[in-house]
């Protein structure tokens, strides 16, 4: 048996969570460093996984397979394809930054906030989330995936509710109420989604058990059996089960109109936790659409595509419009994220190779860019103690470095060419145009709006006269720079040279497309023309 690299990648952060939680309460700093060490170790392991993954090789690599609950036909099956590898790596990269950014967030002694927040708990929970997300990306067994898909809600719930942001506009009681409201809303939305998926999972089991004799959840096996015809889903069954799965993923992703938990959750949690939500955990939703919805239920996916695409486009426009109107920095970013998730889903369900690889790339880029923007915003907010846009003004005069990084993050969010998101957004739009030109055109409007909300945000907060309460604002400290600088570097790198990532992604996307029995349509519009149109839009 080969070395269980994938398991170890997930186990290390989990073990880290246990170790961190076990650090004595008084030794906060030690706990932080322990957690960071484990996060970095995970990063190393993720890097090793990426290195060991050969893009042209088998579809699922580094596979592991053990019996787990034979009574349910559940196996402990891990394996990564190109998409998963990239996302694992993204997770592993982001978590150390999240930790560094939130270094003092859960430390009553280091901040003015005297609420009871155990430092060990905070870091342990982050590591736990990381472990669960990683294993969800790695698993090739539907049940295994489902278990962690659901289970990661609990640590996230505590992170949102227990370590929330103190910078809200109202009194302490009101904040506490808001916080727990946000946490419960987050949990209930996702739990309901998960439970609906549970019904679908059970339905899938019933179908496989009925047709194969023994129920199975193994993705490769199901695909194999479907390919050789031993397993056939009736149209009705396939559609219902697909809807069950898709509902859960759409809640998680989040897709309009199931998105309403996200602004609350992101608004009430601290910036690092918000990064965890939007850049890491939500990616599981889009990832699962790509992997499970499309591969397991190709026919149903095709059946549902029109509706989903429309919803995605609505999400793009709706998110962007609401972002424009926000007065709260984090909520603004949250709505921007909703808009971006619309793009990702659009790319996935456009069913073209450009669209899907664009969507995958978008997941990565969105992760990095949102992380950069949110973390910087977090620094900003914690300095002022407020997240209302109106409370800021002229920051670039007192804290130029802060303002600068904020600008870069913002530009990445509006997909400025040269930064990572541009490439992915471009690919998504191209992929959509080739099949659904009308939707592509409407989606492009989202970009215009993105420029609007980002630039307005920057203008109101950073430029103009220095407002009261901003005068003494300190610029970024070394720790904060260490957090932001690599992320910006990464954005630049991905914007200029995305090939290493796309190389890994593309074979997996092709496989997925072939599962859906779709091929790229013959081009109707030439690519340069689209690019030109896009440039004009800018």
């Amino acid at each position, binding site marked *: 048996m080969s070395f269980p690299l994938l398991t170890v990648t997930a186990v290390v952060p989990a073990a880290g969570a246990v170790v961190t939680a076990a650090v004595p309460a008084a030794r906060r700093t030690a706990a932080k460093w322990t957690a960071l060490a484990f996060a970095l170790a995970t990063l190393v392991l993720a890097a090793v996984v990426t290195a060991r993954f050969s893009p042209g090789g088998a579809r699922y690599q580094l596979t592991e397979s053990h019996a787990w609950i034979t009574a349910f036909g559940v196996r402990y099956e891990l394996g990564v394809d190109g998409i998963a590898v990239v996302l694992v790596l993204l997770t592993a990269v982001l978590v150390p930054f999240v930790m560094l950014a939130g270094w003092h967030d859960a430390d009553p002694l280091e901040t003015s906030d005297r609420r009871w927040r155990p430092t060990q708990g905070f870091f342990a929970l982050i590591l736990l989330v990381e472990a669960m997300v990683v294993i969800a990306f790695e698993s090739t067994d539907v049940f295994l995936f489902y*278990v962690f898909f659901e289970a990661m809600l609990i640590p996230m719930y505590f992170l949102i509710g227990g370590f929330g942001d103190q910078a809200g506009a109202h009194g302490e009681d009101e904040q506490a109420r808001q*916080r727990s409201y946000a946490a419960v809303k987050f949990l209930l939305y996702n739990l309901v989604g998960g439970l609906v998926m549970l019904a679908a999972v059970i339905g899938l089991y019933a179908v496989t058990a009925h047709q194969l004799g023994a129920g199975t959840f193994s993705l490769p096996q199901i695909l194999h059996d479907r390919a050789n015809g031993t397993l056939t889903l009736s149209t009705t069954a396939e559609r219902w089960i697909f809807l069950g799965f898709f509902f859960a993923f759409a809640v998680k992703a989040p897709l309009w109109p199931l998105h309403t938990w996200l602004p609350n959750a992101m608004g009430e949690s601290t910036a690092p936790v918000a990064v965890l939500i939007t850049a890491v955990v939500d990616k599981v939703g889009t990832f699962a659409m790509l992997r499970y919805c499309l591969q397991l239920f190709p026919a149903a996916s095709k059946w549902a595509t029109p509706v989903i695409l429309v919803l995605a486009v609505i999400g793009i426009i709706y998110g962007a419009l609401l972002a424009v109107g926000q007065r709260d920095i984090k909520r603004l970013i949250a709505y921007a994220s909703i808009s971006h998730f619309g793009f990702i889903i659009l790319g996935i369900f456009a069913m073209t190779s450009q669209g899907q690889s664009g969507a995958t790339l978008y997941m990565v880029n969105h992760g990095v860019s949102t992380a950069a923007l949110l973390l910087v915003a977090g620094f900003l907010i914690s300095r002022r103690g407020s997240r209302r846009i109106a409370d800021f003004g002229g920051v670039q005069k007192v804290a130029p470095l802060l303002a600068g990084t904020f600008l870069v993050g913002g530009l990445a969010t509006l997909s400025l060419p040269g930064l990572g998101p541009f490439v992915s957004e471009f690919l998504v739009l191209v992929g959509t145009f080739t099949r659904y030109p009308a939707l592509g055109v409407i989606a492009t409007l989202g970009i215009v709006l993105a420029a609007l909300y980002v630039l307005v945000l920057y203008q109101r907060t950073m430029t103009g006269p220095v407002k009261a309460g901003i005068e003494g604002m300190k610029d970024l400290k070394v720790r904060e720079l260490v957090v932001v600088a690599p992320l910006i570097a990464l954005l630049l790198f991905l914007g200029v040279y995305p090939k290493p990532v796309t190389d890994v992604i593309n074979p997996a996307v092709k496989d997925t497309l072939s599962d859906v029995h779709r091929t790229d349509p013959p081009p109707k519009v030439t690519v340069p023309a689209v690019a030109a149109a896009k440039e004009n839009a800018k």
Partner: protein
Amino acid sequence: MSATAAAVHSLWTTRALADTAATPAIPTPHIEYAQLSPVLIVFGAAVLGVLIEAFAPRAARYAGQLAVSVVGLAAAFAALVALAADGYAQGRSHVAAMGAVAVDGPALFLQGTIVLIALVATFTFAERRLDPVAHGNRVDSFAAQGSAVPGGEQEQKAVRAGFTTTEVFPLLLFAVAGMMIFPAADDLLTLFVSLEVFSLPLYLLCALARRRRLMSQEASVKYFLLGAFSSAILLFGIALLYGYAGTVSYGGIADVVDGTAKLTPALANTTGNDALLLIGGAMVVMGLLFKVAAVPFHMWTPDVYQGAPTPVTGFMAAAVKVAAFGALLRLLYVVLPGMRWDWRPVMWGVAIVTMVVGAIIAVTQTDVKRLLAYSSIAHAGFLLTGVIAVSPSGVSSVLFYLVAYSFVTLGGFAVVTLVRDAGGEATHLSKWAGLGRRSPLLAAVFAVFLLSFAGIPLTAGFSGKFAVFKAAAQGGAVPLVVVGVISSAIAAFFYIRVIVMMFFQEPQPQGPTVAIPSPLTSTAIALGVAVTLVLGVAPQYFLDLAGKAGVFVR
């Protein structure tokens, strides 16, 4: 009148020759004592407990009772394991004691579960560290003197003298013995008698709370009146089934229902009357549904759970459910499979209503014990979905769910006993606010239990729920699964609410304190956590066990 033929009576040592000739010898019944040994051991321990009550000096009773209960239950469990190892759970399973008791997989499995539950419950019963020391005596959760009027002079005297009701241990053991027979009963008479054997001690136990005695007595009266009512209904159902089939043995009735029995003229007459079968079956099932607290028959649950002493509530919530579901399974799977087209639609309805009502009403509760009561109702609904599957996997999934649910419940109620204020246990939810700040460990443990109730993956509750839903889906009850999933979501809301209270709300200034338990309660709680996690992460062994045990003997 042949006087010489009769033996000459030489005082009272006569052998009645002539008379024995006249009355033919009745074939001696054959009782397999070895196979009934688990139950007999528990009964023996209970009787021993009564003797201890009668003869041991007061100071020695507590220790003696505890020792007898623990040893008795452990021995019973050992006997069960030995029986199972001998193959009585599978190949050698058969009906013992002249057709009264089945010794088969489900019976042994459920009995084992009940015995273990009782063992843990014994620990919580024996806990004496929680209540403040009264006049130099450590006291448990039970009334100093059950017969004394609450607040009366007699009670004060008893409290001063440091009396405790050590009778609770024999009562517990009697109840356990009844519960052990209940799912193993293979004729309706044994079913009824064992139902009463375990119900009567429970009625009494409910009335014996040390604090809030009026409430406790009220709970007991309610439980008793409704329980007696339901058992009367069950009995009438038995009468009708007997009238239909001319026998009360499960196998015999099943034969008649299937039409494979030899028809006597009387039988031909009664079997023509389907009303007997339908009404009788319905009434018996009603009696059992009362015990499992399924919805139209659930009215007693919240009040009784709230009023009873918390250790008793925990025991009841766990063990009664196990026993009653065992009996329900056996009844539906052995006696009435022939008419499943009649009872399945009804049970569908019951299951749906139970799940939904249990979950919805729980949302409005403000008392932890009532909340858990409604949650237990909702769980009864989930279990019913497994029962409806009518397949081996239905049986095994219900068995598995019962194990998972019962230990979590026990642990949950054990945690409730620890949170106390001046008036005893602080069960009002508002008092639990901020508990996570005051004692994070306890709150975390309770949160684990709640998450398990809610069915979050990696907990026992999830495995159980998955198992029953899976069985139901395979049995074609997909809509039921959907309803189950929806009510799980509703149920999740109120579990989460408690967690929110504990972790995200500021502690009240006059909030409760958390008592430091003795190892007894700690063991119960730790076991609950262990079962929650083990069954959540690696349930395979237990699923296998339940799967192997899932075949009824007939």
